[in-house]
């Protein structure tokens, strides 16, 4: 039973996050080991395993990157532990510019406002990439989808560095 089947979703990149969360709670309500607190030893062990699988499925399907990686793995492409680098000079150049911008923010007169603006830019980039991933997976263009996932990872990393900077400035 794959993660999509477990949650009764069609296999595919687009899914309703709220529906996912609802089904997750429904499944845990049925399989959490607490429901088997007075069951037999093997039932309890089984419930722990099942419940762990539901948790893993939920965290995988919830994350835009993990969900794409999972779909690619279903198509035979393993991305999660790869060391392959992205070959896309235009994208990489853009990343370098973004990073320079990140470094400049601290010296700006209104860094918090600059952070907010930058956050919006990154958000747009991310949602564009997610749309691309969805289309590429639908067209079974797995190599292109894999590249988009690699790009999305860059963006997410940049985003978390931005968040860290925000915390630093806020403190």
């Amino acid at each position, binding site marked *: 039973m794959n993660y999509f089947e477990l949650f009764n979703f069609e296999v595919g990149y687009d899914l309703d996050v709220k529906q996912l969360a*609802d089904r997750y709670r*429904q499944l845990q309500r049925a*399989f959490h*080991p*607490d429901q088997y*607190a007075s069951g*037999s030893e093997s*039932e309890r062990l089984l419930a*722990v395993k099942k419940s762990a699988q539901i*948790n893993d499925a939920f965290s995988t399907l919830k994350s835009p990157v993990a969900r794409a990686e999972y779909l690619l793995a279903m198509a035979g492409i393993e991305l999660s532990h790869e060391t392959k680098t992205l070959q896309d000079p235009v994208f990489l150049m853009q990343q370098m510019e973004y990073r320079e911008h990140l470094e400049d923010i601290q010296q700006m007169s209104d860094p918090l406002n600059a952070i907010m603006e930058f956050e919006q830019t990154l958000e747009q980039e991310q949602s564009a990439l997610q749309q691309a991933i969805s289309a590429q997976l639908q067209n079974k263009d797995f190599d292109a989808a894999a590249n988009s996932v690699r790009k999305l990872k860059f963006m997410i990393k940049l985003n978390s560095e931005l968040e860290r900077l925000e915390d630093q400035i806020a403190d």
Partner: protein
Amino acid sequence: MALLQISEPGQTAAPHQRKLAVGIDLGTTNSLVATVRSGEALPLADQNGIKMLPSVVQYQQDNIVVGYNALEQAEADPENTIISVKRFMGRSLDDVLTTYPELPYQFEGDSANLSRIKTRQGNKSPIEVSADILSALKQRAEHSLGDELQGVVITVPAYFDDAQRQGTKDAARIAGLKVLRLLNEPTAAAIAYGLDSKQEGEIAVYDLGGGTFDISILKLEKGVFEVLSTGGDSALGGDDFDQAIVNWIKVQAELNQVLSSRERRVLKEQAKKAKEALSDADSTQIQFKLDNQTQIELTLSLAEFNQMALPLVQKTIIACRRALKDAQLKAGEIKDVVLVGGSTRVPLVREKVAEFFGQQPLSSINPDEVVAVGASIQADILVGNKPDSDMVLLDVTPLSLGIETMGGLTEKIISRNTTIPVAKAQEFTTFKDGQTAMAIHVVQGERELVKDCRSLARFELRDIPPMAAGAAHIRVTFQVDADGLLSVTAMEKSTGVQASIQVKPSYGLEEEEILSMLKSSIDNAQEDVEARRFAEQTVEAARMIESLGNALKADGHLLDEKSRQTLSNELEVLHQLTLQNDAEAIKKQIEKIDQLSQDFAALRMDQSIKLALKGQQVDEI
């Protein structure tokens, strides 16, 4: 406010069928036991009507005294009177001595192992001392409820690591209690409040007890309590406020000499009293006599106390900020803040918490009782008294779990705040030809270096089939159950051979030690060991006959005729065995049926996944 419980006819177990279960708040300073009776969750009082049991154990020559009577003896017999033992749970002796340099106890043992306290009844591990507290609560509950307990829910700080949780569970076993669940204290508090107000949204539980601080961010939605993140400090609490006052007294009274055990104790009591007085006064008097009869008199103002308390309170606020960040929330998004623990009565705590969250925190339930009350509600559900409850508790791991790799570095396997239960597999390989064993060191913590993390256990994988170096692929699965406890299984992939695992808990007890303590605790209680075993096995057998019998009735069609008949026959054999007097035979038969019914259990679970989702579809429409 008391809640009246009105139920549909036939939905609540009849009073005589109600199973007795209690919730226990095994606190650093005080412990409590509570139960649900007639729909109301209430702490149980002792014969004198007192609910709080000080977590103090005195080891007399032929007697073990727990609670207020032990506390009274603390001054006269400091070395044999163990106070706040929870601080030592799962800690090494080195750790204990560094954190608490002024303890009056004599410790025994190896500096890198679980600490043991030398008493006149022999060396006592923190687990055994905790078991004595739990035994006292068990006695109180059984006396008050009039029958044996079927199960307990024990609360632990959300921040407790694996060793501390395992220690708590082992203590319960030694006390002869069946643990239905270890529950995080803040979650228990949320249950107590959640059932009253049925609210939805994110809440923060700020729990400052005697010796530990916890902050938890929880999400309440449609009967599901989800812990979004936890943080805190397992060595910060009201005792530290007391210690700050003790230090202040020493400076003010110019006490530079080495103090006697009695003087230290008196100083501590005075400090505690002063702290409590300042909860609703602007200043307080401190008066006591030294051993040389010198009278000390001081005045402590609230402003002075606030000044010394501020760094401690600030530490808690930093932890709050981090927990919010982990939950990806801003302080303003928190709907309610719940206060737990006696130390939240300190005015500066309330002030700073209100300031940080931008709202007045809730404290309508007694902050000393709220955890035990919540635990009893959960115990009532888990023991099976409320089959129609749809409450689910989803907890997270408080600390990252990793293994030691080359160069003393840690490699994270399960990161902090992952929802449990969780299972993660990792592959290892051999580095020598013909290698048949492998050592794995599991640690808990957030730091890069192994020496900065807490050692959890050392596992030794044996029986790896001998192969060329690098040819064996050993898949090790780390599983954390709903109580937050780790178990490990390993398998060599190409041959499918299961490697056996030997666990050496770094700061815990080994299985044999627990068994021998269990035996001696029964000896002490002068019970008939055989009779007790038989009673336990009969209860277990009845449970199995009922649950598997029902399962066969409901889902027997999932099995072929032969398997169904086999299970029915074996259940009948089990029933016959309970009419005889052989505990061992019953145990064997239970194990046999458990083995035989494994496939059936798996089939039923797969079927219910489909049913659960069908139900979901209906709900969504």
